């Protein structure tokens, strides 16, 4: 609906006249024109009506008995809203003095008697419209005033020389200042010195270019840095409008955003993105003057174990301390940009720093070794102290790479090499490292993907009684068929997973898989025989191992007696007390326990006696030596006798021929597995044997 067709509210008009004929006529004429008319016969009644009826306009006869029109007009002006009320006095044309007096009393306008009634309607409309416009103007004005008052900016009107001609907002003071007692004569007098110096030029520039110009300046305000933005807007008449705004919040927000984007919240070190920008420009600068740059890749040793065993908060504490140690090592080394250390945190426990290289790589090895040593003292971590040494790889620009990604990759390869070589050391990159490290890295990534996508497989190697070669169960063995490289030997990828710290995930996956397979066999009405599962030392020394296995069994509704858990000696002797406790818990839960690869490790018979295990497995290396090697045969015999004396059963692994079988039978070995009978079989093949 267009605005003009909206129903107009009825306008209220008061007429005060002692003349009944005038009242009658006015009422008739104005009502006929759509006004709501109130009538008064004298001044008192008129004032009462203004208070009561809130007319939007008053027609006031000047000469009335009692309170006359002049007095009524004066009093109406003092009523609430009376200042804006249009008061039109009605007077005779023959008394010009009365008009003067009426204006003095506050009249808005006048009409003369005798009243032209037709014209009066137009006159009333005109006066009301004028009052509306004035009202709208007043409202706009007060809105503008309120806006100016509420505006945090200061507004100055300047002449071409920067002299203040008027202050539109801010009372002649800068944002944040209380309005000054003395009005300054120039804007420069208010600004910090360097901005004051620049101001005249900028004023001239703005005026000549007819373009707004901006100047940012900083000052200390109550000990806090305040950033002011001065915008100069040229006017047509050669004056300038200067808007001074406090943009501190905005500037600090920008800084915060910058920090969020380029800094690591935990250690307050720059992140990888920042490093890429800074190192790129450092390389560019070094390249121009033919200088060399050393890039140090610092990787904390076994950091994941801190996170896994003591929790993430402990890990965070170590990282914060590590960042501090690196900062202290660098001291005041600035490289390129003032106030910025050439140091960044790349990822979880990886840091990168870069240094100008004066001599050969040997000189940086000294620095790198100083950093390595800084990581040797234990890290305080709540109530305990943890070890987090550093493996540091060094690569040099331009010899080991011309760009950031290459240098980073090569320094990383060197640090991996430092880890392989026993951790807590510095290794300088050599070209041949890269292939090995790359291969390892990509294989590791592939393995992670394989675990995540369930594309590892469990194979079953059947286990037989030596006496009658009856099937008694199987050992579950992990197989990984790499999409490109084919089957990867377990010892290779298990080692990789152990080093990368996700062997635990793999163990869990296998236990779950085996339980599910057993569950499937049961559903298919198969014979249910026990399956042996290998647990890594990492998994076993984790307190949650018992819960992990019982949960998996419960989930697949597998009786505990169908699961045999195989552990290496090394897993047990590492922390014998804990091992004994965990083994006891597992045995009490109904699982069968076996010691794998017996004879290759610590082989403490004393310990073995105290572990609650059921079975020993003779390592394949002894079986392979038999029966030709006397030593192997003697060992097999000793193990079998020892095991039987402790009421343990014995399994021989890797049996490949009948001569070995004959020997084992002769020595009284209980069970065997190996190529002689079957290799590890895919699940479907094994299931068919059940």
């Amino acid at each position: 609906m267009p605005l003009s067709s909206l129903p107009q509210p009825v306008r209220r008009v008061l007429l005060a006249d002692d003349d009944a004929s005038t009242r009658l006529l006015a009422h008739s004429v104005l009502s006929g024109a759509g006004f709501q008319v109130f009538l008064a016969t004298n001044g008192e009644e008129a004032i009462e009506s203004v208070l009561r009826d809130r007319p939007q306009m008053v027609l006031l006869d000047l000469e009335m008995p009692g309170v006359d029109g002049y007095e009524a007009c004066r009093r109406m002006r003092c009523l609430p809203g009376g200042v804006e009320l249009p008061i039109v006095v009605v007077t005779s044309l023959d008394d010009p003095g009365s008009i003067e007096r009426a204006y003095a009393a506050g009249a808005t306008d006048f009409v003369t008697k005798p009243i032209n009634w037709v014209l009066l309607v137009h006159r009333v409309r005109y006066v009301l419209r004028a009052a509306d416009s004035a009202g709208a103007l007043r409202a706009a004005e007060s809105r503008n005033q309120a806006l100016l008052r509420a505006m945090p900016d200061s507004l100055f009107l300047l002449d071409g020389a920067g002299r203040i001609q008027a202050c539109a907002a801010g009372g002649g003071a800068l944002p944040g200042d209380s309005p000054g007692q003395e009005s300054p004569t120039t804007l420069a007098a208010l600004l910090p010195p360097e901005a004051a110096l620049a101001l005249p030029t900028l004023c001239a520039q703005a005026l000549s270019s007819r373009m707004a110009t901006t100047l940012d300046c900083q000052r200390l305000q109550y000990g806090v840095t305040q950033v002011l933005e001065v915008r100069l807007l040229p006017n047509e008449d050669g004056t300038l409008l200067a808007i001074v705004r406090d943009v501190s919040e905005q500037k600090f927000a920008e800084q915060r955003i910058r920090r969020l984007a380029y800094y690591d919240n935990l250690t307050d070190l720059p992140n990888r993105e920042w490093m890429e920008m800074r190192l790129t420009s450092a390389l560019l600068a070094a390249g121009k003057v033919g200088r060399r740059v050393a890039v140090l890749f610092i990787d904390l040793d076994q950091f994941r174990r801190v996170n896994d065993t003591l929790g993430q908060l402990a890990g965070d504490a170590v990282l914060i301390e590590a960042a501090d140690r690196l900062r202290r090592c660098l001291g005041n080394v600035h490289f390129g940009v003032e106030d910025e250390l050439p140091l960044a945190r790349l990822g979880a426990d990886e840091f990168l720093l870069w240094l100008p290289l004066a001599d050969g790589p040997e000189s940086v090895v000294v620095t790198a070794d100083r950093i390595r040593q800084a990581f040797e003292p234990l890290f305080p971590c709540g109530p305990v102290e943890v070890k987090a040494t550093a493996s540091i790889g060094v690569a040099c620009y331009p010899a080991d790479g011309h760009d950031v990604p290459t240098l980073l990759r090569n320094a990383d390869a060197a640090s991996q090499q430092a880890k392989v070589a026993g951790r807590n050391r510095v290794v300088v990159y050599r070209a041949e490292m890269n292939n090995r490290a790359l291969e390892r890295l990509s294989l590791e990534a592939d393995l992670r993907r394989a675990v995540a996508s369930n594309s590892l497989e469990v194979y079953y190697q059947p286990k037989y009684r030596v006496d009658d070669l009856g099937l008694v169960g199987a050992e579950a063995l992990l197989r990984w068929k790499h999409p490109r490289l084919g089957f990867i030997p377990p010892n290779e990828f298990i080692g990789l997973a152990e080093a990368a710290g996700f062997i635990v995930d793999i163990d869990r996956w296998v236990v779950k898989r085996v339980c599910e397979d057993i569950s499937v066999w049961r559903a298919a009405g198969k014979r249910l025989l026990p399956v042996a599962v290998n647990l890594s030392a990492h998994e076993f020394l984790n307190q949650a191992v018992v819960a992990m296995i019982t949960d998996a069994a419960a989930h697949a509704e597998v009786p505990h007696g169908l699961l045999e858990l195989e552990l290496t000696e090394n897993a047990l002797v590492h922390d014998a007390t804990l091992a004994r406790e965990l083994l006891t818990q597992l045995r009490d839960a109904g699982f069968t326990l076996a010691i794998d690869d017996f004879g290759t490790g610590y082989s403490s018979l004393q310990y073995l006696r105290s572990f609650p295990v059921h079975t020993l497995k003779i390592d394949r290396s002894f079986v392979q030596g038999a029966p030709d090697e006397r030593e192997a045969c003697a060992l097999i015999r000793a193990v079998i006798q020892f095991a039987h004396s402790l009421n343990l059963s014995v399994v021989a692994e890797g049996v490949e021929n009948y001569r070995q079988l004959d020997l084992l039978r002769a020595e009284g070995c209980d069970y065997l597995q190996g190529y002689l009978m079957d290799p590890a079989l895919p699940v479907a093949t094994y299931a068919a044997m059940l």
Partner: protein
Amino acid sequence: MVLTESELDRGVIDALRELPSPDGRSMIVCVAELFTQDSPALLQQMQQAVQREDWLALAAAVHALKSYAGNVGALRFMAQLRELELTAKAGDGPQCIALLAPIPAACSTVVAALAREAICP
């Protein structure tokens, strides 16, 4: 300005005829009625004011009647009243008495003329 023989302004009278009144009659009828009703009292106030030699009260009463006269277009009568009002405000007693003398007759003429207009459209 065209004056009728009864000294009423034809334009004002015609305008009054066009205006509706609250009770549905022509406005000329209503206004004539009011003038006829109220003028005797105002004339009486004038006489009393002169007797009291209260010239301001005389001026006020004259002013009021002048206003009525204006509304019915009695321009000549208005002019007479204006002169009297100014004289009264000036406090010129003898002159007031002289000017007041023809007023009642003039007022009767206006009343009669209004009556004719009200009755004969």
